[in-house]
């Protein structure tokens, strides 16, 4: 390993830091590894921390160094990410990665059609939100490498997200990662593709080529790392040009599972403001729904950004559902149940659907071609919609 620096730092320090840690490392010429550990969990996990750091020094071939650790209760996967970063900053050419064992509960896969009513955004460099995210039972969590991560912390977030995908139990929810805008986003892929990511969100998508570029790199990495499960894509459209190209983007890959929209950037691109009633984005959102349905994938709405306004969120879910969206982004765990409730079929819808399906089945049994319920004729699309409603009701525990 070649290094230019002899000193580097990584991680988070200060009184407000929780569940994270800070490292300083200085290479020396002799005297071995000297650890200076200041940890608020020293009496409980002091020995375990020492063991982990010595093991990592050995892995990276560091023999002589002074290492300072200020620890505010970082879990082992966080500490490993921060330490790997402090070493990487010393040796920019380092091509070794330190892996903790994979949590067996994470060896799940996903399907293209699964419910994606809610996806909970987790800032990629904020480990304290990871551990309990799955407990709030969103349909998916998104480890975000893009807008929620400061430019200077992009590398830190890559390592932390990689370690989280391996170590954190997300309790069976779909595991998504939002990569950075291309071309940087392509660099992110090697930190996630080998570690059982389910869905990759491609931000600021403006052409089908971007999806194809991601797909090619994902396929290359899958082969290289013997990854066999499917990895799906959810392009995010965030510009006027992207809206114009929506259908091409939605149909660019057979592994696209959904299409979504980011309204902050989109309205900025139009030179307008987001409003609560949302007239300015009605066209774009309708295009998204139409393009997604034409390509046979799910249409997913943007996030609702006022976490205190649950009534507003509820209204916005009802509106999204009426436009044809099947899911919504969440930025706070408390939004999850409201979103699920909103997308679930109402009891009136379920009752009606049951009646339709039952009379259809009865008519079929009797060999009658035309079915009617009350004074209304029931034809094939009506039955299909009713069947879908019942399916949704079952998935929402409502049937």
């Amino acid at each position, binding site marked *: 390993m070649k290094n230019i620096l002899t000193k580097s730092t990584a991680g988070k320090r200060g009184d407000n830091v*929780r*569940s994270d840690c800070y490292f300083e490392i200085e290479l020396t010429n002799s005297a071995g590894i000297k650890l200076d550990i200041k940890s*608020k*969990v*020293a*009496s*409980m*996990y*002091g*020995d*375990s921390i020492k063991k*982990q750091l010595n093991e990592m020094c050995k892995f990276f071939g560091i023999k002589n160094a002074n290492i300072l650790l200020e620890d*505010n*209760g*970082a*879990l*082992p996967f966080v500490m490993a990410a921060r330490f790997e970063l402090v070493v990487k900053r010393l040796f920019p050419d380092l091509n070794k990665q330190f892996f903790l064992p994979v949590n067996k509960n994470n060896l799940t896969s996903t399907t293209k059609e699964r419910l994606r009513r809610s996806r909970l955004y987790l800032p990629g460099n904020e480990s*304290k939100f990871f*551990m*309990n995210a799955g*407990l*709030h039972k969103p349909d998916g969590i998104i480890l975000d490498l893009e807008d929620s991560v400061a430019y200077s912390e992009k590398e830190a977030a890559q390592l932390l997200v990689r370690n989280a995908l391996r170590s954190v*139990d997300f309790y069976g929810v779909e595991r998504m990662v939002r990569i950075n805008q291309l071309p940087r986003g392509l660099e992110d892929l090697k930190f996630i593709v080998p570690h059982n990511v389910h869905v990759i969100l491609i931000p600021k998508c403006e052409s089908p080529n971007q999806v194809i570029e991601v797909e090619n790199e994902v396929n290359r990495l899958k082969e290289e790392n013997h990854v066999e499960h499917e990895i799906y894509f959810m392009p995010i459209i965030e510009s006027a040009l992207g809206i114009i190209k929506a259908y091409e983007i939605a149909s660019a890959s057979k592994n696209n599972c959904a299409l979504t929209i980011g309204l902050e950037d989109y309205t900025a691109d139009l030179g307008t403001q987001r409003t609560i009633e949302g007239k300015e984005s009605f066209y774009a959102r309708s295009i998204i729904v139409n393009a997604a349905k034409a390509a046979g994938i799910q249409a997913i709405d943007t996030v609702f950004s006022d976490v205190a306004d649950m009534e507003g969120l509820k209204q916005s879910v009802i509106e999204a559902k009426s436009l044809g969206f099947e899911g919504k982004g969440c930025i*706070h*765990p*408390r939004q999850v149940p409201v979103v699920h409730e909103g997308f679930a079929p109402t009891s009136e819808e379920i009752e009606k659907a049951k009646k339709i399906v039952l009379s259809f089945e009865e008519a079929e049994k009797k060999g009658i071609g035309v079915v009617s319920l009350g004074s209304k004729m029931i034809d094939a699309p009506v039955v299909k919609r009713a069947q879908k409603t019942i399916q949704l009701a079952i998935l929402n525990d409502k049937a």
Partner: protein
Amino acid sequence: MKLIKNAIGRLVPAQVNGQKQIPFKGVDKFKPSGSKAKPKINSCIDFPEDGNKVVKNLKEALKKAGLKDGMTISTHHHLRNGDALTNILFDTINSMGVKNIRWFPSASFPIHEHLIKYLEDGTIHHIEGSMNGPLGRFTTEGKMKGIGILRSHGGRYQAVQDGEVHIDIAVIAAPTSDPFGNANGVNGKSASGLIGFALADSEYADKVIVVTDNLIPFPCVPWQIQGNNVDYVVQVDSLGDASKIVSGTTEVTKSPDRLLIAEYVAQFIDEAGIMKNGFSFQAGSGGTNLAFVLYLKERMKAKNVKARFVRGGSTKYLVQLLEEGLTDYILDGQTFDLEGVRSMRENPNHVNTSPFTSYNFHGKGNFASIVDVAVLGATEVDVDFNANVVSHSDGYLLHGIGGWQNCLYSKCTILAVPSFRDRIPVIIDEVTTLCGPGELIDVIITERGIAINPKRKDLIKLMKDSSLPIKSIKQIRDEVYSICGGAPSKPKLNRNKVVAVVKWVDGTVIDSVFQINKTN
């Protein structure tokens, strides 16, 4: 120091500060006989006929009360972290050159860090009450001259009543008083709601000094403290910082994980059939303890259920229940916000209680066991359901017991706790300090799962088909250990030096707190 293993397997000293101790004998196994403490007989002819007991200042009152070395001085904690009086009291005692005081507060707060210098210079010998924050650190490091004693609110009343602690001088901070010494906490600029923790002190102390910053003409009503028990009244400019006595508003936690726990608590109370017309519950002021009330309220409204009474720690959220007709009464032990104070002042169904009525184990019954469900916190819970509220997993004293031990007697005791904090497991193999025996603790509700005590077969059966994540406590522990990187090491303690003991509600010693080895 001679240590004995008590009935729950913990090592406790046979003597504390020269006083013989009874080791914990098991839940409900200790029933002392004999008589209560006997306060001295007084005659009204020894007191001013015009009822005016005002003396010119605190020093004068202490002098008249006969303050001398080695006495026991009591204070109470209704002024919470806004309390200026206790600090002024010990400044005065120190200026009089008096030493070796046993300080007997009903609780201490971070503001009392000021008193560390008096613990160092020998003005205060030791604390019996609670040792929070900086005082806890000081005590745990073995710097206090005597051994600290931690008691519950009910245990404090019991200790005074049973003669275990004889108070020489009680100093009662009174937000409003008349010259006769009738006093209350509901009026005045330093209003704290009620002042029930000072009740035992007023009844049993040799001398009682009421200190007020709102002296009004006789009669001061309501008289939560009766002037007939009071020797002297002192008027001061200010008892403390009103904004820290009660908060302007108490807010529910915003932490999604705590809200999830609170939601589970409400769902559990509902599904276990506890939430039914005429039921009762206890709610505190902590984040989760406040939040579950809101979720429970939604369920009560949806099912048209009304409580008979709610025990607080009152806050605006309990006041709303009362005012919206969802409970007949609030039985209040301590008022946390301005809305609580207002309600107690205006609403006769918002009732002030004391440790005697609510918690005293050596009485002809108390309210604690009448309550249907109590929702409490803890710093640690072990796989036998034993819990700790006084110390941190690193061995440092952190909190007082408050009414916690007493509340364990409710018909269903729920501890609502996170399963770990940062990298500190809360559900563990064995608690650092045992404050509550597992046999009284029925349900542990964490964000990762809900454990029902195997003794509560009835609850297990009721919750069999619940959608709640019911698990065994060992399952939750295993999950937490796997997140945190294995079982935590135990703090390195000096097992030869007891720095404090924890009393059970009956006056026996349930556990010891040992000195922290500074090499840690």
